[in-house]
């Protein structure tokens, strides 16, 4: 083998180092660009009316997105109510009973598939089974779509967190004559509570920014959310509708809503990541 010029090798090495540093900087620059835009354009729309008033017709001053904020909270809350218990149950079964069995492997594989399913497909699925059959869009259909997206995330994080609990704790509880269900819910859950909580929060953060599954389930509405059986206002679909509208004041409201969504989703994500990181040390 011919010896190569060390100068050239060093030069190539240096340029790759610079390139990789530049790529990392590029990533951070894009993050700053996106977040900076959202803050600059959104901050102007955030005021008292934004949180308290219904949207005004285009051209009229004032107006806010109070109905959409309330609707998003309401749909997300319903989704948590449906998705989290089922997800936790699945996580418990995987960690405590299923373990390495064939069925448990199938469930893990299924939840990976579900996690990788595009959220718009979940929207289509819920539309066909709930909206097309009942004949109307509804907040509860939107909540179910979000719950389906949360379910595999909650199940897998719950499993991971429960598996981390030392078996000695389980055995100690069982040796005292505590029944299995009490040992799991009282002892194992307690030991894993921070992990379970952060996992659930991450899942909530993920779904609260979702738009595609709500487009044809919850739809949108210019009114206050009242019952679960009618189209329900929500922030993300409102952003989509207002951004596509030709009115400047609606677009400004869309930026305000984007800022609100970005702050809450990223805030929750960063907070939970930090908690997890401190715990893992």
């Amino acid at each position, binding site marked *: 083998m011919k010896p190569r010029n060390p100068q050239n*090798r060093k030069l*190539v090495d240096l340029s*790759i*180092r610079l*390139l*990789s*540093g530049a*790529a*990392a900087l*590029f*990533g*951070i620059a894009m*993050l700053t*660009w*996106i*977040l900076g835009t*959202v803050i600059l354009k959104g901050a102007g729309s955030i005021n008292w009316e934004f949180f308290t008033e219904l949207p005004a017709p285009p051209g009229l001053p004032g107006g806010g997105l109070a109905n959409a904020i309330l609707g998003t909270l309401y749909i997300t809350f319903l989704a948590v109510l449906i998705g989290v218990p*089922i*997800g936790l*149950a*699945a996580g418990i*079964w995987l960690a405590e009973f*299923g373990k390495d069995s064939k*069925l*448990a492997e199938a*469930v893990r594989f*299924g939840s*990976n*598939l579900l996690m*990788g*399913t*595009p959220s*718009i*497909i979940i*929207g*289509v699925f819920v539309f*066909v*089974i709930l909206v097309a059959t009942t004949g109307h869009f509804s907040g509860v259909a939107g909540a179910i779509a979000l719950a389906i997206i949360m*379910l595999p995330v909650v*199940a897998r994080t719950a499993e991971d967190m429960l598996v981390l609990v030392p078996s000695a704790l389980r055995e100690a509880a069982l040796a005292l004559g505590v*029944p*299995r*269900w*009490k040992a799991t819910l009282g002892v194992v859950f307690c030991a894993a509570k921070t992990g379970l909580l952060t996992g659930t929060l991450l899942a909530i*953060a993920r779904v609260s*920014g*979702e*738009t*595609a599954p709500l487009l044809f389930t919850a739809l949108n509405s210019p009114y206050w959310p009242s019952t679960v059986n009618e189209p329900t206002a929500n922030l*993300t679909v409102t952003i*989509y509708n207002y*951004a596509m509208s030709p009115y400047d004041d609606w*677009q400004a409201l*869309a930026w305000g809503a*984007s800022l609100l969504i*970005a702050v809450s*989703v*990223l805030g929750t*994500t960063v907070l939970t*990541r930090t908690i997890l990181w401190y715990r893992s040390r």
Partner: protein
Amino acid sequence: MLKQKNNMFDPLFRWTTLGGSLVVLVLVAGILLTLINGALPSLEKFGVGFLFSQEWNPAINEYGALSSVYGTLVSTLIAMLIAVPLSLVIALFLVELAPPGISRVVGGAIELLAAIPSIIYGMWGLFVFAPFLADHVQPKLAAIAPGLPFFTGPPMGIGMLSAGIILALMILPFITSVTRDVFQMVPSVVKESAYGMGSTTWEVTRKVTVPYGIQGVVGACFLGLGRAIGETMAVTFVIGNSHEISASLFSAANSIASTLANEFTEAADDVYLAALIELGLVLFGVTLVLQIIARWWLRRTAKKMGAVR
């Protein structure tokens, strides 16, 4: 007496939690069957030709998936072409070059890109990035390569190119984080022996780290691909939503997901709705296959490298 009562709850607990697990499997099967069933009118009317017809005309009730499939593939291809090399060098930076403190901060920032909701990318893409592309990038591309059909037509900003670039940003964090993990799995003894022979950082990466982790990197690319193919809102905002197939990357196009997002609530006719659901079925099928390949591949790699995953 008390003991018996307690024992009754244990099987109940076990069956309830099993029920929660089965919901997952029922959902996967349910989605597949629902989509197939919903697509039946379209499947019967258009058959296999659905995939190869460019027609998309609600007025005469003729539908074909070709332009949507084409748009999905091309925008994903652009995204992969940009995101894969970029992710590789960023992962290299995080694992080999940066001091641990900086690596953690930069890695965290890159991961934050994944946490930004898709609709925010859409807003930024439509109002900020697409105009930027039209003013500063597209005229230059057209000037650099005047003969190429990819870079012709008016620089509108909105279109295939901006959709591809924004998709690249969205999948970048996924590929980077898996690649970083894979690079970290390479035993340091192997790397150190290469350094000991006088190799430079790049030579160690190219000849030791990448060949050692190549399978993991490929798996990461599959995961990114799966994400990009199904991404909806960001693409819907910037792709322009046109059912015309054009060789130019500057022109408006559509993808399966963007067509669903745009037209689903408008579909009054049964065949129209069925055609849209069939588009969804195509998308679901493709992501299922990609997921299965990716998981199988990553698991095989992990086993080979003796890591618990």
